[in-house]
């Protein structure tokens, strides 16, 4: 309430930062924590400042109820209904703010469970992208140029990166191992330089940003894990293809994530002497 009072009148939702209490459980939870630290601690404050539509996280959102009613709340057919709502808030002239308060969740610590959760998120991003690009001009008019680009980059780009990443890595591996020049006709020199720049600058920049992400919370032990992000991207790609398959075959199916499997306890449950919620 205090943050709402300090925010501009058009602030309709406040998103808390999210992090994980079981970051140190295994490699997957460490990478998931890095992923969240990059998104909630580094990117969201920037997006908020640029007034780019913020795809809301599913936890710890605080809404003005009248705005929520006016926008007919969440889309029940979208499996990332929170992300979709964030876009619609911006389209209707509302602002999503970020509160400097952290909710610690349980990071999915099993790969199968993680892929199921992430494939739902990927499918939801695909749905959100398809829904809002039915009328690109309307999207541009309602979100502005920065918002429009931000939407394409963060919603469309997330899905596209997941889908295309393995294709490019496979092409690169074939070129490197077989030392073939069979790809040369497909890569004229300007495109080759651009691809090389993307390979080096893109990967280097992402790894560096991941290294910076945990500093805010003092999770310095996670920094070296940034070097293993390529393996994490591989899992994201698996989830993206799974999400695409489900979008075609079973678009509204809600893939359940199993919670309460972590061996670690949240601080709250530890204090209450209970198992994690």
């Amino acid at each position: 309430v205090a943050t709402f009072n300090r925010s501009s009148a058009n602030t309709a939702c406040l998103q808390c930062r999210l992090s994980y209490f079981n970051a140190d459980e295994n490699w997957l939870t460490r990478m998931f924590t890095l992923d969240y630290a990059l998104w909630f601690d580094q990117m969201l404050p920037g997006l908020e400042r640029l007034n780019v539509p913020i795809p809301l996280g599913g936890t710890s959102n605080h809404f003005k109820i009248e705005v929520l009613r006016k926008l007919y709340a969440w889309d029940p057919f979208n499996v990332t209904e929170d992300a979709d709502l964030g876009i619609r808030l911006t389209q209707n002239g509302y602002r999503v703010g970020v509160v400097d308060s952290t909710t610690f969740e349980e990071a999915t610590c099993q790969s199968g469970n993680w892929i199921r959760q992430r494939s739902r998120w990927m499918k939801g991003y695909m749905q959100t992208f398809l829904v809002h690009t039915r009328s690109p001009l309307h999207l541009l008019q309602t979100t502005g140029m920065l918002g429009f680009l931000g939407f394409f980059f963060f919603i469309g780009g997330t899905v596209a990166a997941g889908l295309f990443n393995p294709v490019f890595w496979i092409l690169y591996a074939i070129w490197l191992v077989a030392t073939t020049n069979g790809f040369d006709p497909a890569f004229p020199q300007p495109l080759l330089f651009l691809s090389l720049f993307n390979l080096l600058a893109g990967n280097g920049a992402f790894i560096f940003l991941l290294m910076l992400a945990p500093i805010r919370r003092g999770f310095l032990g996670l920094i070296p894990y940034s070097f293993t992000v390529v393996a994490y991207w591989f899992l994201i790609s698996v989830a993206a293809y799974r999400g695409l398959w489900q979008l075609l075959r079973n678009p509204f199916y809600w893939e359940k994530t199993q919670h309460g499997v972590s061996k670690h306890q949240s601080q709250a449950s530890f204090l209450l002497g209970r198992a994690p919620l």
Partner: protein
Amino acid sequence: MTQKAATAFVATSTFFVVLSLSWFISDAGLLSDDAVSLWANAIAAGDGDMPVGRVVAAYPTIPFLATALLELVSPTGTPTPVLLAAGLLGAVAAIWLNLFRRLGLALPLTIMLVLLIALHPAMLRAAIAGPAEMFFAAFLFLLVGALYDLRARSAAPEVMAVALTLLGLAFSHPMGAAFACAATPLLVFTVRPELVAKSAFNVVIALVFPTVFCVFAFSYMSWVFPGSGWSFLVAPAEGIANWSASMSRTLGSGLTGLSPLDAGVVTFLAIFCAPHYFQ
């Protein structure tokens, strides 16, 4: 005079002093070898006469790329390295002016101070020597500020600033590369103690990652494109040797005749004397 006008005044006056001095010196037949070879390479790269392998392996990278880009957009015959060095010193002078003003110094005093520093013979010598030395000086100045901020507040933006200025330093001049390497073990002293207590090594990884990654990236590119082999890795070492030799010619053989030994003696004296000085 407003601060904006003062900024424009110090930047343009510094720029034109460097241009005039460069013209005067080159008219007298004195030309910096580094600036001439940089210009020749930039012209060759701009005209497409240089193999891609040599372009991506060219070192010092930042001055070379900046000169080549300026060469592409300038009319033929423009002395691009001189323009670039003069512009850089002008820009640094403008930054100094705004910095001194933020510290609360009066405008006339600030202008005088900035002109005294920017037009100091050592700065002018660096500017006339070419863009590489000016980039080196600029990044060294930025690094000092970034290190100071890192000690005050070791958050992600401060870590990023130090990491990127180290990268700029290493890729602007062979001595910058030497400075960056030498500074690495000492970086831990610039981070806040609470972070050092958690994991000093991991913070240093984040600080040096961009530099190490770019060394790897440029080495990889010079391997991919034929014509340069692994020359990117050799270039900084050769550059340091050439630079030391030319400095010896200019300044004499130093204390011992060996630059690394001189550096060691100076470092020891600084460490020994500093506590007494600040007492």
